């Protein structure tokens, strides 16, 4: 029995992460879900939120995504997201820039649902700002 998951995290312009991990926390449409090895085949749409990848007990990766899809089958997890932002490795300038962009988008946004998503995004960014 394997105790690791094969995880591929891809965006249209690049492959963001690929490798073996312990577990993954994903922001599924109907609530956060943690995927562990031996998970049942499962497919879900994702909302705005944080993807947390546990490499080992002490090592974590965190990405902010705008929504996307996750496909889980036979210890193989594939996550598709158009836009992602690294919450661990990004520099202060990157944070400033993206927070600024989001704030601008909030101002011009007319759609209530879109606005809500952007506000959540901003909150997550500010909470992770270091």
């Amino acid at each position: 029995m394997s105790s690791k998951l094969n995880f591929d995290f891809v965006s249209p312009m690049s492959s963001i992460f690929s490798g073996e991990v312990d577990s993954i926390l994903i922001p599924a449409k109907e609530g956060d879900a943690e995927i562990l090895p031996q998970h049942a085949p499962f497919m879900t749409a994702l909302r705005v939120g944080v993807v947390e990848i546990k490499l080992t007990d002490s090592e974590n990766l965190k990405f902010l995504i705008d929504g996307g899809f996750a496909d889980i089958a036979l210890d193989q997890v594939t996550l598709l997201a158009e836009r992602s932002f690294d919450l661990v490795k990004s520099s202060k300038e990157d944070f400033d820039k993206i927070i600024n962009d989001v704030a601008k988008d909030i101002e011009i946004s007319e759609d209530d649902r879109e606005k809500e998503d952007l506000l959540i995004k901003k909150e997550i960014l500010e909470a992770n700002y270091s």
Partner: protein
Amino acid sequence: MANLKELRNRISSVSSTQKITKAMQMVAASKLRRAQENVETARPYSDKLGDILNNLSASFSGQDNAPELLAGNGNDKSHLLIIATSERGLCGGFNTSIVKLAKEHILQLKEEEKEVKLIIIGKKGKELLQRDFGQEIIDIYDFSEVKDLGFIEAEKVAENILSLFEEGKFDICSLYFAKFESVLSQVPVCQKLIPFDIESKVSEEKDIENICYEYEPDEEDILKELLPKNLSVQILRALLENVASEFGARLTAMDNATRNASDMIDDLTITYNRSRQASITSELIEIISGAEAL
């Protein structure tokens, strides 16, 4: 014998043209490498998305309630053709080969008395198609200001197509672009976007079909989100393939041009030297025969 000065001018003008083509070739070569990397990084995403869609659509096959983007709206009267070309010329037969394929299909569709609408991406395609099919063109995208074609541009095109589809302006949509196979070969292809082309992959996915997935939210809702996304991703892929193909075509074209120019310079130099030699000989003969006459 041609005038010596004329020949000298021609040689210098050909060699400056050669310098330009050589520079363009080198620029194309370096840009090609980046474009190729982009195509390769975009591939996993669209492949995975295709896999997921195939799995999902298998559960819809034969049902009446499949979304229209997947199964089409049942008609095939009005066709929308999206023709992706380049913004710049001097890339060999790149644009003409795409346009040629598209033109064949347009004429065929017209013969069958179908309605044809065109969306063109790129200036060159517009130049080539405007004269014959100016009335059919409903939209033109010009990305010449955009430095790196990316997801944003693809999304723009996809959104437009989706809203046209929802308004019922067309029934079937296909996309024309040049697939990048290698530096030497770029193949113009036609890809069906709406309805979604399932068959192409089904055979190799047999073993995964048996897995019983759980869906959250249910299949229908996931498909509703996935299909528009797939559209943007397919267009993005086409755009990226096109960019790589364009540079590949330009690289080959400019390589040929550089080689032609150096052949031409060789020929001209020989003619130049011969006529110089001839004029020297005739001057010598004049001097000698003048001396003998004394």
